């Protein structure tokens, strides 16, 4: 692997707080190594800003290994940047070349208001989980882990859906700001397992209802969400959610 260094122009969204107006600021960064991660490039920029007596850019990040779901940059018009199946923190600078201009924005969605600069509020996702994204078992009452065999295929599909990291890229990519990929991943994960079966009808109804309440848009199946999902969550989960929702609605005796 050939390593190289580059100079870049960055246009970054700056917004002092939730109620302030934001704008793009332009920065130059020099001697960026192709071995750096995208966030390490931001570290370099922030150190430079601090050195110059300015305020650094606020951005969310934590594990820096692509699993916590905290990082959330909209890079050159794409959530998490140009690489497929990758979070911002795992994007590395060899994706760019010397002289590039990189535009960085926060997630844009009514249900994800900007907190500061590139930081947004995704608590709406937590509230959707609160509406039913769980199995209602208390600690300590469970039966032996091997008492119910689970068909491997279903277990694997449930796992693939459960791989969602709740980052919100699906919402950011969607022209309708729909959260259907996120919600369907959780509905699928639990509906595919016998443990989640008992509550499947209420779960899908309540989670969808909460999603609507939070101000997420409708799904028009453009598949943009799947294309940018860092965990490659499949839109077949959305189809499964629709099926679950239809069945639950038909079976509902609530008028």
């Amino acid at each position, binding site marked *: 692997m050939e390593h190289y260094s580059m100079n870049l122009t960055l246009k970054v969204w700056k917004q*002092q*707080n939730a109620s302030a107006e934001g704008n793009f600021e332009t920065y130059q960064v020099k001697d960026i*190594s192709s*071995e750096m*991660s995208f966030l390490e490039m931001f*570290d370099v920029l922030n*150190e430079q800003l*601090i050195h110059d*007596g300015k*305020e*650094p850019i*606020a951005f*969310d*990040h*934590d*594990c*820096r*290994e*692509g*699993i*916590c*779901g905290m990082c959330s940059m909209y890079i050159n018009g794409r959530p998490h940047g140009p690489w497929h*199946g*990758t979070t911002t923190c*795992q994007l590395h600078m060899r994706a760019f070349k010397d002289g590039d201009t990189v535009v960085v924005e926060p997630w844009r969605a009514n249900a994800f208001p900007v*907190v*500061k600069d590139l*930081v947004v509020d*995704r*608590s709406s996702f*937590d509230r959707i*989980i*609160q509406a039913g994204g*769980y*199995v*209602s*078992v*208390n*600690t*300590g*009452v*469970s*039966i032996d*882990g*091997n008492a*119910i*065999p689970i*068909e*491997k295929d279903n*277990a694997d599909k*449930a*796992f693939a859906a*459960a*791989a969602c*990291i*709740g980052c919100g890229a699906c919402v950011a990519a969607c022209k309708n700001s729909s959260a259907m990929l996120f919600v369907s991943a959780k509905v699928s*994960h*639990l509906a595919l397992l016998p*443990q*989640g079966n008992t509550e499947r009808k209420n779960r899908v109804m309540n989670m969808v209802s909460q999603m609507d309440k939070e101000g997420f848009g409708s799904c028009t199946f453009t598949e943009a969400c799947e294309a940018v999902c860092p965990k490659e969550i499949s839109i077949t989960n959305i189809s499964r959610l629709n099926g679950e929702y239809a069945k639950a609605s038909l079976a509902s005796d609530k008028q």
Partner: protein
Amino acid sequence: MLDSKIPAGKLEEKWVDYKGHCKLVNPANKRKIEIIVVGTGLAGASAAASLGELGYKVKAFCFQDSPRRAHSIAAQGGINAAKNYQNDGDSVFRLFYDTIKGGDYRARESNVHRLAEVSVNIIDQCVAQGVPFAREYGGLLNNRSFGGTQVKRTFYAAGQTGQQLLIGAYQALERQVALGNVQMYTRHEMLDVVVIDGKARGIIARDLISGKTERHFGHAVLLCTGGYGNVFYLSTNAMGSNVTAAWKAHRKGAFFGNPCFTQIHPTCIPVTGDHQSKLTLMSESLRNDGRIWVPKKQNDDRKANDIPEEERDYYLERRYPAFGNLVPRDVASRAAKERCDAGFGVGTTKQAVYLDFRFNLINKYGRVEASKLGIENPDEATLVRLGKEVVKEEYGNLFDMYEKITGENPYEVPMRIYPAVHYTMGGLWVDYELMTNIQGLYALGEANFSDHGANRLGASALMQGLADGYFVIPYTIGNYLADEIGTKPIPTTHEAFEKAEAAVSDRIKTLIGIKGKQSVESFHKRLGKIMWEKCGMARNEKGLKEAIVEIQQLKKEFWSDVRIPGNINEMNTELDKAGRVADFIELGELMCKDALDRNESCGGHFREESQTEDGEALRHDDQYMYVAAWEYKGESDWQLHKEKLEYEVIKPSQRNYK
């Protein structure tokens, strides 16, 4: 002075007896009792959910934007449990024994036995929550092996076990939030414990969005705030992982146990340059299928695949034939360092060894698949292709992650790996009930010191976090709170809250008022360098003494020259970080002091003065068979208390993995 409150009786009956006799709080009284849980990783989320289910009023705090993002989520390989589903001779006793031995005989027997006992309940609980563990074709749970054991007892979900377990606990937590039993405070950081009449009665927290400090009352406070590996700057911890909550408790009187016991994990992606902000782990489970080697020739510049089999030194298999590539982490890390220091390292920096999957890809997986498909005499290309599919299913995300970071394809060329700071066995001293020496203040999970002695075995951190939160604290906290049912909530106008909040605010004002020249990050990097070089994989008296002086100087410089831009009453990530780094600096000094005091090698703590002829760690049970519990007395001033470790069942011996 230190009472570990270990119940009397036979080892295997202690926990059963304890549960049968501990005090209970009736449901009506539980509703009147408030509990504060700080941190929402496996220990915190499982504790907050379980206590909420029991009917206590819980307030949970995390610094991330959602409780689901705590760093437990990054754990990869698996979780141990003594289920013996594989019929390979596992049992509660064996898990207990392996953990004590793996910890190099510096953990408490009673705690570890309890951990092994409840391990089986954890798996049942997680399955019931819908955690999608890996399964066999027959639909039953699958297992793999991990270092330091000879049985397959590790349950897993590809390379994302921590994520799946945490999501399970998070969902249980959010269910309690929905039911109104838990109140969740995200983007909040605990900055002090409030102690009234010797009992923990609340915390001072800072809202990281508004910057305002808040007072919260609790009848008890649980710190589930993880480990302090970031004292080394570079570690596999998340960027935000910090010691602050535990350190504030320490300064308020809670003893810090075995601070020098640090785990350096053998298989991490090597450092590439000064820009490096963190290190990434490649799961220990990879050592199941990867063979570790270096060239037999020093400074060999050939590409890995150009080096013929007979010129490779599989040094772990050579030195430790019985455990081979599956020796415990501390042993594997030191062996890698030894080879690199001797000039056999690989890659541009020569600070790396190879982790090679080709052999097992072909011989272990390729042949089985070929046999399943009825292919006779398959050629090597076919075996590689078939084997790859299986390896992909087992570890796919890890291989992808490696390729994203390094730009190299680990299916084709061996991974380059090197040890990195990963976990801290030390932590707040707790008794059998997980209570610190401050009444009503508990520490769970990695934040306490209790179960892993001087070295943690792989797949045991998840086990301990969930054991503490789901199955230990719900019982032991009742034993304390039963006597607190008459205690009315203390108004946060109480002078102890006033004073604590004022101290927190003053410190923040001081920090931001320094207006020096150097960034927080630059201080953190310098601290990390001191710690890694002088209190890292190998330590000696001279280095540690130097480190203490250097850290004291660094502390002075920090408090006179740190630059924090921005204001207090707004989101200010530099200010958040400054408080954490200031605490890391103090902790670093204590770690060196502890390492200096313990003039023996045990587990992850390797004192160069104390080794066998062939370079293995040499313990001195006659002098150091104790937990070092440090009491904070003032700036750079600690008093050592010793909790003697009594081994009633296991007879400590020099660890042998040969």
